[in-house]
């Protein structure tokens, strides 16, 4: 399967090959190059556009707990960028983080969520991560957590690391469409359709 691995070079080669057979206009070829070009390396430290440093740190830590790897995948940056242009989203996250902090203070007398002990954090998350615990007391936390979870997952699974973890091998281009025999045999055998 290695020839089908996600590789920008493979894609360019395959597109170029397909194009050479059919006459790809120069501007189109250039577009393919641009799209396939390596992402620009981010320079310097990200400056939050909406969140306070405290909120941003909390969000980064919470995302990482929800989806390990989400911090490096830029979950907090992603949410900050969008919330800076969307008041509804901003309110969901600033309100949610404030709720977490207040809940920590109430339960453990620690000033905030990030400052609490890992065990104290997960004790609270274990409650708000499930709809079955819905109550007037936990409701706001549960609804916030659903947002944090889906956006952390979005950030991670659209990042290079997340895509690699899922094992997506496409966006590579092929000159001929072929499915590995072992994959077909695997599914046929398991399905008992053969």
């Amino acid at each position: 399967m290695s020839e089908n691995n996600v590789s920008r070079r493979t894609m360019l080669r395959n597109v170029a090959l397909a194009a050479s057979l059919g006459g790809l206009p120069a501007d189109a070829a250039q577009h393919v190059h641009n799209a396939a070009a390596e992402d620009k390396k981010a320079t310097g430290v990200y400056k939050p556009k909406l969140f306070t440093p405290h909120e941003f740190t909390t969000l980064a830590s919470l995302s990482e707990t929800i989806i390990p790897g989400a911090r490096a995948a830029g979950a907090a940056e992603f949410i900050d960028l969008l919330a800076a242009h969307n008041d509804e989203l901003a309110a969901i996250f600033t309100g949610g983080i404030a709720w977490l902090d207040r809940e920590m203070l109430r339960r453990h007398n620690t000033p905030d969520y990030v400052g609490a002990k890992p065990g104290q954090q997960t004790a609270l998350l274990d409650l708000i991560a499930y709809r079955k615990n819905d109550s007037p007391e936990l409701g706001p936390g549960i609804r916030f957590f659903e947002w944090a979870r889906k956006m952390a997952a979005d950030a991670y699974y659209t990042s290079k690391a997340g895509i690699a973890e899922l094992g997506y091998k496409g966006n590579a281009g092929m000159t001929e469409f072929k499915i590995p025999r072992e994959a077909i045999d695997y599914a046929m055998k398991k399905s008992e359709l053969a």
Partner: protein
Amino acid sequence: MLQVIRSPNVHDVVVIGSGAGGGTVVHVLTGLGVNVTLIEAGPMLNPAKDFKEHMWPHQVGHRGAGDAAEQYFDKQQWGYFNAPNGYWDIEGEPYTTVPGTTFKWFRSRVIGGRTNHYGRISLRFADYDFKPYSTDGLGDDWPITYEDIAPYYDKAETFIGVTGTKENIRSAPDGIFQTPPDPRVHEILVKHACDGLKIPCIPSRMAMLTKPLNGRAACHYCGQCGRGCVTASNYSSSQVQIFPAMKTGRVQVITNAMARELITDGTGKVVAVSYIDKNTRTEKQVRCRSVVVAASACESARLLLNSKSARHANGLANSSGVIGRYLTDSVGFGLSGRIPALEGLPKHDSDGFGGMHMYIPWWEYAKKNKEFPRGYHVEIGGGFRMPQLGMTHGSCRRHEGYGPSLKQKIAGDYGVTVSLAGRGEMIPNQHTYCEIDPAVVDRFGIPVLRFSFRWTEHEVRQARHMQATFQEIIQKMGGTVSGLANPEREGEGISIGGTIIHELGTVRMGNDPNSSALNAYCQAHDAKNLFVADAAPFVSNPDKNPTLTITALAWRTAEYLAEELKKGNV
């Protein structure tokens, strides 16, 4: 409006709209040496700039959500990465619905219209599809037969490039095909399940190239047709018909020009097209010898209904009163299932075509005493898709929790779902139509359409048949049904009218001028130099996506028009 600017010269043919219908007319006429003026409401398309093929979600900061997180609040009109200009709502250009009914109208405003990002499923109508009334007493027969249109299916397929295989199935006539790509793993499973149920499952017929054609490259199997294909390996009116026609020097393209009205003279002939130049918001007129309206079925009906005069009080070409009536969409119903046989499947590149490689044509056409009239085909979805925003929302909601265990479940859900989507025939009914809303105009001052839409028992029973069949197929694969797969649906799980985007029939053809607007060549009974070349002329809405038939019919209309111009008849 101060002054209407009129063109000094008389244009031979003015075509309104550059989608599948308009693009075909422009291609055919310019090929026959006829000069054409094309009026298009949207801007020019520049694929190299406008298409986002091959981009990864992490190449943009918002990952595809839109700058203001539109996708998270259902405010994104169309996916960020998709080809431009397709909308359920267009700012300043509303449409209304009769109270108590729902209808959604998908419009594009750009060179190429909706073909820049359509699904490219290209199915011929069957012989019996042109004779629905003779077959079961419902609806009306077409004024043409399969034999009349078959040569134009041949021309259309040969020119645009369609994949497929010879199958000898009456509901799915064979055509002139390029070799299709191999099936994907989940499609092989569906095929085997169907074999066991005696349901046909065959290579799908798609307007994509597996071999180069007319300077267009063969597909490189990236699965991203919806974003627009930079190598023009799939059919779009813009890249395959309009741009090449522009190179002939025989077409003058006027973009950002919204046709408002067709102007007629004392004899009832069309003498000019009046349009709003969107750049200047002024009204302009082009004088013409003949006009081909191809603004998409409902826009064409709207334009004709708005072209009122003393002679044409109900709108142009509407002495029969049929314009706007006989509106239909396809019946849509979807189910998806989790297939354990796909769990742990060795990962591989399954991108392939942007769309299915196998499909299920209708199979019960010979059955007597069916529970519902007509039939449907089934579209198959699945595979290891490029991860994108929202892909894991279902898993997050289902599994809840967090941490490594959630990640494991998300990974386990990837690529194990197969979806089946039925697309079936709706019978026209008197509660389903469009008309001019007397109270509302758009931002150009043009009266807008008001829709009324209703399914009847025919369609509801058909959707139930789909549900039962899809359950059987999923179970046969060893899977469990996981949910209704139509994003927008009514109580019974049936799609909301318009959302399958096969709206048509609003300016129908027929032999009798009392019950049809157009003759067998899509020429207005009431105005000999007026033609319609989109899906408005269709007499019925068979269980096949309409675009290949739009292309074939437009091709035939254009050849007829060229002949009539030569003879001096129009």
